[in-house]
């Protein structure tokens, strides 16, 4: 159910960008040139919607199939037309004639009397011919840009718009069947007004950030994020310590796996945990969120919780300090729980997602508080960081020290067009995992 002030994942049908944003009434959203407001979607189940004149209307997923059937019918009609005339069939299969279009005979008749002229005139003729070809190319589409804008403004459905573009394309009848399908698919994707509004999940959030700005999440790709969760054996009841520089994505994934049981201790700078939009985006309920235990780095460095002085009361604002006091007390109470788990050696696993902080430096502060058989997983995009971490872990007699990386690629699966996607984001990182053991007998 799409609710006001909760987060949703939005993806345009045919597009590859996923946007995570908060639902708010009267707020206008723009995704890949598609503009709309959330108002009509609030209260509806997650699903497929169509944007028309800025408003949303829910449609059935099988509508995507009916569109496919329509184009299949169109393709059949096209085939029957081709079989009627062998000449047209021949021209459709031969794309070299495509540029000349219907005006080729005129060009030929024009050029025939000039054959006897001198070289200068021949050069001039070639220039004229090139210009006319350029003019032909520009005038291949009868529908103008202004007309397209007007049709969109009037709220014409996307499939009708695509049909108009197909009718208006002079060279369309001469294309191969494959080329026709490709043209239709591209126009559909470009002018589509359909979008998916989905419940956010770790997968959608990870893909959204990785596609938009991979460096912000330390180039952490979905498959490596998944592998880190498995190598650290995070499941319900686990107590996991996380240091991350990836916008809260790793902590969000851990909290999701805990499901309200266990603890995710999140090391952070400053007084409060900030810059964690991935955690906010997951809409965790209070039970699941209760496993999120922020722990200040300053507490770790000091070796104890430093409680701030409480004598900063401002008499001009009597209410504000009280709210601030309450929040601060709650924060300190949460940190006390986290700190107690830490110093009691009750951490099951320790995950580091490093962008520019040295993992060795973090491990030195934490190592003595990790119990035996606890798991350590470190991720970095920089191989030297992993090599240094490897040597450090080996020097402390950790076992099962393994280094992993991976290559992930997407495939296009379509009739007569099944192949890997030819260009995609490949930036990622390297994982090192280890288990701490008792070196003494």
């Amino acid at each position: 159910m799409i609710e006001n002030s909760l987060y949703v994942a939005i993806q345009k049908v045919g597009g590859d960008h996923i946007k995570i944003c908060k639902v708010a009434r009267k707020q206008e959203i723009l995704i890949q040139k598609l503009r709309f407001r959330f108002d009509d979607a609030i209260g509806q189940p997650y699903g497929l919607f169509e944007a028309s004149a800025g408003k949303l209307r829910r449609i059935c997923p099988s509508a995507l199939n009916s569109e496919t059937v329509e184009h299949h019918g169109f393709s059949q009609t096209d085939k029957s037309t081709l079989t009627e005339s062998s000449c047209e069939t021949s021209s459709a299969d031969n794309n070299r004639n495509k540029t000349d279009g219907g005006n080729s005979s005129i060009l030929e008749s024009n050029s025939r009397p000039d054959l006897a002229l001198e070289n200068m005139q021949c050069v001039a003729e070639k220039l004229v011919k090139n210009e006319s070809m350029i003019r032909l190319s520009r005038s291949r589409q009868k529908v103008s840009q202004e007309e397209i804008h007007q049709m969109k403004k009037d709220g014409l459905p996307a499939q009708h718009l695509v049909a108009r573009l197909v009718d208006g394309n002079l060279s369309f009848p001469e294309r191969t069947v494959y080329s026709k399908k490709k043209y239709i698919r591209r126009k559909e994707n470009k002018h589509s007004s359909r979008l998916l509004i989905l419940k956010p999940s770790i997968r959608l959030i990870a893909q959204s950030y990785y596609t938009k700005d991979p460096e912000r999440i330390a180039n952490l790709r979905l498959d490596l994020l998944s592998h880190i969760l498995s190598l650290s054996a995070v499941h319900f009841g686990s107590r996991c310590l996380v240091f991350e520089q990836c916008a809260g994505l790793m902590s969000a994934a851990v909290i999701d796996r805990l499901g309200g049981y266990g603890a995710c201790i999140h090391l952070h700078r400053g007084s409060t945990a900030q810059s964690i939009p991935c955690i906010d985006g997951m809409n965790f309920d209070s039970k699941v969120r209760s496993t999120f235990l922020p722990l200040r780095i300053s507490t770790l460095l000091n070796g104890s919780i430093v409680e701030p002085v409480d004598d900063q009361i401002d008499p001009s604002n009597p209410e504000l300090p009280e709210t601030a006091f309450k929040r601060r007390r709650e924060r300190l109470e949460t940190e006390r729980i986290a700190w107690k788990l830490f110093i009691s050696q009750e951490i099951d696993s320790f995950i580091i997602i490093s962008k520019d902080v040295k993992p060795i430096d973090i491990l030195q502060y934490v190592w003595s508080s990790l119990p035996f058989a606890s798991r350590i997983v470190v991720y970095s995009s920089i191989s030297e960081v992993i090599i240094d971490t490897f040597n450090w872990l080996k020097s402390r007699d950790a076992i099962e020290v393994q280094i992993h990386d991976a290559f992930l690629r997407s495939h296009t699966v379509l009739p007569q067009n099944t192949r890997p996607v030819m260009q995609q984001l490949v930036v990622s990182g390297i994982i090192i995992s280890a288990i701490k053991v008792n070196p003494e007998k």
Partner: protein
Amino acid sequence: MHKWRCRIKYFKKCDNCYNNIYFRYGSRISATAGYIYALRPSADLWTRTLLRQTQILYSPDCSLILTLLDVRPGAIICESGTGSGSLSHFLALALAPDGHLYTHDIDEVRIKKVESELRVHGLGAVTTCIHRDVTEDGFFVENACDGVFLDIPSPWLTVSHAKKAFNRSRGGNFVSFSPCIEQVQKLCDALKREAFIQIETMELLPRKLKVMNISETTLKEFSLMTAAEKKPKTMVNSGSGERKRKIDEDTAEAMQREEQLPQKRTLLPSPPSQPTHTGYLTCAKLLPFFDETSDT
């Protein structure tokens, strides 16, 4: 979950090996030849140690499948086929304690073995093992699942059954694992027909690496070196698995060399032969659907 999670300060009694001997996870225990470490069990360690009845899915693929299915405590997942139970352990651990895994297999002997293993591992309460051919008879439950996973030869024949298994008001995630691209083509056609969305096919190629010391030499030094002298200066392997004696020698050598010039290290794939294909992962999403109110 008794064997998987011991809450008494990680102490555990191991009846099978050492009668009345208590040891702590992570302890080093002397054995007849050297020593061993006792580790806390987990799904990925189980994957590496289980006796195989079939080709199994390994940790990187299993990990990605869990994320693609959005598995979390409370999720209800249907799986087919069970195989050796490698992925079943990943799924059961991830959805416990409130969720449930329904795993189906066509081989009765296999399904019984995995069932007993799951029970011994303390996951019997969250798993149900069913001897069934899902391509013909469908899944054990209907209108219930948050996710369906298939690792069978003909997944396209099961898509309509999978759709029935999903919870209609919530929809869910579908993932299939197929070695051959022709299987993927048929499956994608079937998914489109059944109005699944976000149909994606991907291939995951994990790789293991190890740290190597680099020993460089100039051409002049090389030409002055005899064949006998060459041996001690070859690349030193500092990966895990080395004998302790050799590690000490390597350390001494490394320290000696560090006095001369700074030590360089790099990452190399190890072992030299690694998988270049496991299978294609096809994932799709089913939106909430209500058959009674079709507003096409």
